[in-house]
C-alpha cells in the first residue's frame, strides 16, 4: 500500500525513530510501511494519522481498494 508517511516526515523533519517512538512501533516497521512491504493495522494507521494531525485517508492511499463489490 502506498503512503505519504515519508514525505510528511521530510516536511516536518521527523526521523523514523521519532515517529516509531511516538506511535508505539519500531523503526523497521515504519520503513516497511513506507516502502509498501507491510500494511499497517487500523490502530497503527490511526495513530500515525493522528500524529500528523491528518485523517487515515490523507496519509494512506486506498485507491487500489476503490472497487468494492456491494
Amino acid at each position, binding site marked *: 500500500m502506498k503512503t505519504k508517511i515519508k514525505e510528511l516526515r521530510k516536511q516536518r523533519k521527523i526521523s523514523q525513530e521519532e515517529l*516509531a*517512538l511516538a506511535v508505539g*512501533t519500531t523503526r*523497521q*516497521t515504519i520503513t516497511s510501511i513506507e516502502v509498501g512491504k507491510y500494511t*499497517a493495522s487500523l490502530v497503527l494507521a490511526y495513530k500515525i494519522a493522528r500524529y500528523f494531525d491528518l485523517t487515515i485517508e490523507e496519509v494512506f492511499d486506498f485507491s487500489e481498494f476503490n472497487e468494492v463489490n456491494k
Partner: protein
Amino acid sequence: MEKYRKTIRKRMILCGFLAAVAVGLGILHQSEFFDLISLYTPNEALAGFQAGLLSGFGVLSLLLLYKYGKAVKDDTKLKILYNKEYDERQNLIRQKAGMPMLMITSGIMIFAGIIAGYLNEIVFYTLILAAMIQLTLGAMVKIYYMRKM
C-alpha cells in the same frame, strides 16, 4: 509503562536465577558430583559441550540482565524495548516463525538434553540435535519474513 517496568523487574529476577543455576550446575560439573550419580563416565567432548551450553545460558542470562537493567533506569530505552516487544509487525513475524512455542520447546529440549547427558549419551545428542534443527528452521523462517514484510 509502570506495569511493564514491573514485568521487566520480574524478568531480571528470573535472569539472575537462571544465571545462578547455570553457574551452580557449572560448579557441580567441574566437581565430581555428577560422576558419582551418573550411570556411565561421560566422554570429554560431551562434557565440554554441556559446559559450553551451560556457559552460553549463563552469559545470555547476564546479557539480558544488563539490557533490562539499563532499560529500567531510562524511560526512553524502556519505551523502545516495549515498542519492540509489542510491535505488530514483529509479532506477526514471530507468529509465522512459530514463536514463542518453538523457543519454549527448544529450551526444554536443550535443558533436558543437558540433564540426560549425565545418564545417556544417545539421548543427549538426539535432544540437542533436534532442538538445534528446530531453532535453525525457526530462524530461517523468521529471516525470510523479516525480508518479505
